[in-house]
């Protein structure tokens, strides 16, 4: 009878503060361009960990290495789950199954599907029944389907998407689409959520909303968030830890206060804004 959620959106079984994602000396080259040079970042369970840097600093490249879209030439990325997985050699689908979910800088949703269907797609990694039993929709397939819908509905409630549930994603405003993308990643019950500039191109109000949802995901659902962001204000407000990249090199790493006071950071990044 309680109105509490029945599903835990946090897929990590680790204790708060233990090492969740260990990026260790990763280097990535595109021909003559050195995108990442021995980058090391340690993400701890339960944190909002921001990765910031000027344009072309290699932030998205780093995220793409973690989610398996790029293969770094050197270094290792270790994901701590029930066992330790090495991500640099794994397929993206495998990595997703282990519990690494992500959103994209440019929205990558199925525009002609409804919000609900897009969210259910996030459940794909957890669907166990085969095509034959799904076709007849009896027994376990049916039970599972209902369970998946239940979780997707909790995510809809969490992100306040009730009024948009049955609408085609393509007809929604940009802010809503971003929220749906966050929702789809959450439906995976991820251990780590990689968000690639979730607030890019938003106005102040939309940004504030999004920041609120990211905080809720972290504080209420307990999900570890790796956040790539351009907007320094947002980052400093909501992150526990910040890593600064510049020309593919880590130039600072620490709490928002430490990083904000670092002269190298001010010169590389804040300097241009000040």
């Amino acid at each position, binding site marked *: *009878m*309680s*109105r*509490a*959620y029945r599903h835990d959106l946090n897929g990590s079984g680790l204790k708060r503060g233990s090492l969740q994602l260990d990026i260790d000396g990763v280097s990535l080259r595109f021909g003559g361009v050195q995108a990442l040079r021995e980058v090391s970042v340690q993400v701890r369970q339960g944190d909002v960990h921001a990765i910031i840097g000027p344009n072309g600093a290699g932030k998205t490249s780093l995220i793409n290495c973690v989610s398996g879209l790029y293969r770094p030439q050197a270094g290792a990325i270790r994901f701590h789950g029930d066992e330790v997985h090495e991500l640099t050699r794994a397929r993206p689908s495998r990595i997703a199954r282990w519990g690494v979910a992500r959103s994209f800088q440019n929205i990558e949703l199925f525009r002609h599907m409804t919000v*609900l269907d897009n969210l259910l797609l996030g459940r794909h990694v957890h669907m166990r029944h085969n095509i034959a039993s799904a076709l007849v929709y009896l027994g376990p397939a049916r039970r599972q389907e209902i369970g998946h819908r*239940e979780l997707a*509905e*909790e995510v*809809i*409630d*969490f992100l*306040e998407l*009730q*009024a948009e*549930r049955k609408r085609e994603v393509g007809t929604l405003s940009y802010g809503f689409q971003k929220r749906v993308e966050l929702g789809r990643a959450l439906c995976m019950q991820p251990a780590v959520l990689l968000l690639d500039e979730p607030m890019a191109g938003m106005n102040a109000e939309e940004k*504030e909303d999004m920041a609120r949802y990211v905080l*809720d995901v972290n504080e*209420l659902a307990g999900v570890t968030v790796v956040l790539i962001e351009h907007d320094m204000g947002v980052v400093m407000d909501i992150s526990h830890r910040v890593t600064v990249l510049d020309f593919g090199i880590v130039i600072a790493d620490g709490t928002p206060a430490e990083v904000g006071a670092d002269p190298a950071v001010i010169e590389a990044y804040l300097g241009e804004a000040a």
Partner: protein
Amino acid sequence: MNGTPDSTFPQLLAGLAQEHPDRVALREKRYGIWQPITWAEYEARVRRLAHGLASLGFRRGEVLAILGDNRPEWVIAELAAQALGGVSVGLYPDGVVDEVHHVVDHAGVRFIVAEDQEQVDKLIALRAGGRLGSVEHIVFYDPHGLEHYELDVLLEFTAVERLGERLEQERPGWLDQEIARGAAGDTAVLCTTSGTTGKPKLAMLSHANLLSMGTSLMSLDPIDRDDEFVSFLPLAWIGEQMIALACALQAGFALSFPESTATMRNDLREIGPRLMFSPPRIWESLVSSVQVRLSDAGQLKRAVFALGYAIGERVADRRLSGRRSGLLLGFAHVLADLTALRPVRNQLGLVHLRRAYTGGAPLGPDVFRFFHAIGVNLKQIYGQTEICGIAVVHRDGNVRFSTVGLPLPGTELRIAEGGEIVLSSPAVFSGYYRNDEATAEALRDGWLYTGDAGYLEEDGHLVVIDRATDVMEADDGSLFSPAFIENKLKFSQFVQEAVVFGGGERPYVTAMVSIDMETVGTWAEREHLSYTTYTDLAQKAEVYDLVSRAVARANADLPEGVRVRRFVLLHKQLDADDEELTRTRKVRRRTINERYGSIIASLYTDAKAVIVPSVVTYQDGTRVEREISLRIESANGVARDRPRRGRQPAGVGGRD
């Protein structure tokens, strides 16, 4: 199922649970699905919570405050308090901290049921300020975000129910005795008055008051257990108490609670209510939504609607005056209904609507006409919180847009000196809670002095002019109601709120208008007019022209002496949080007069503009004061191109 004014709400609930245990009593849309609660479950939950509250020390006669949106838990909490011989007081969920404090403090509340984190945060803010002295228990039912709150007064609803289960097992039959001890004359609810003239007062309404009103209404318009009602207006409002509790517990129909405010329209459509009682703003917004959809529709659709609407209007005119339509008109109406009118009703979710009422404030005749033309039998209700919301109502086949109808059976009505409406009926309240002075003023020799000015027409129909204190005398000596003119202005889809000034020292009538951001915004987009903020949009010359046409159209229907001569578009929307409106969205004239004195003064000079200071508070707390110049426009006469009155479909009329 007939009215039994000698019982209490919990006694009626017990009866229904026994008679129809498996029928649906409540329905809530949650997780995208309508989840039913039967009468048996409803009663079981009320009993559990009542036991739980009792084991926390809730006493007979004590007040339980309820703060939240419409959910099953809201009505369960109210009935649980009443089962123990207690009283419930509803608080408006959008009320700010001070409003919550006023009621909680005044009623000496020890127990509060609050919905969620948002509401609990208000109570915590009050507590931190040491202003929540009396409160001992805060019971919440939506735990999201409250997991980490560590306060000993906080308890989850389900935890109280579990406490209750234990007591229920220990003392079987105890609650039945408590319920049986309840008498119809006991106070059931404290209902906040709307407070247009000051702080809301708390009217004490007994079970007998509420039930007798329900019986009288249902003796005119029978309501049965197959009716459907969507409960989306604040349960703190008397109108919602009346239908969702007093009528539902007598007739046994089901209540449906929408999923969220944003999904309300769609949820309404899914249920297809057979019964609706809403204040004018709901009906007005339904008309606006039709106008907006129509202006986006193609030529053919607009033409079909205009034709169908014209036929619907003629049929409605005949029906309302008690005449029947001829064969030809009847046939045309069947076609019009099929092609134009029913689809519109369907879009609004009103296809199954059998009983439709408007109340709480006057509804503009144009909106009235619209609903009758599309086939919704909308009727005006006049009443006050102090008389359980209903005293006078239209009868089927005898609806006149300018009146509020005839008194309910059992209601006596007379016009006192100075034109004040005075009422007497079994539904008249027993007094204001802890406010003998106000009680003595409102209740004299068993008559309720309403403070509204009105008169009776020859056939007994009551015409309500306005609050007696608001009625104004025009330059030529005639009396007029600002609300009447405001409603004329508000019929334009572009006008959200209008406040009219005049009378006394003021030589002519003027208006302060706030535009509807959504419709004006859409219009501006179509006109390729760029704007940034509400203030910017409101001050565009084109928008002034737009509103100017609406003013001219309103003027066309008004007598010479009370036409709006000058108007100003306000730089902000009137807001209940700024105390400019009551929680039921009525204008607080005194506040407006004080706050916007300089603007009003300029309306009576030749000034082309007025400078007003505006304080903007940013989200981070910094405040910036800047000055805004508001244009003042003179309304140029009346609309000349207006077609014959009443023949213009609302949707087409609002287009330019």
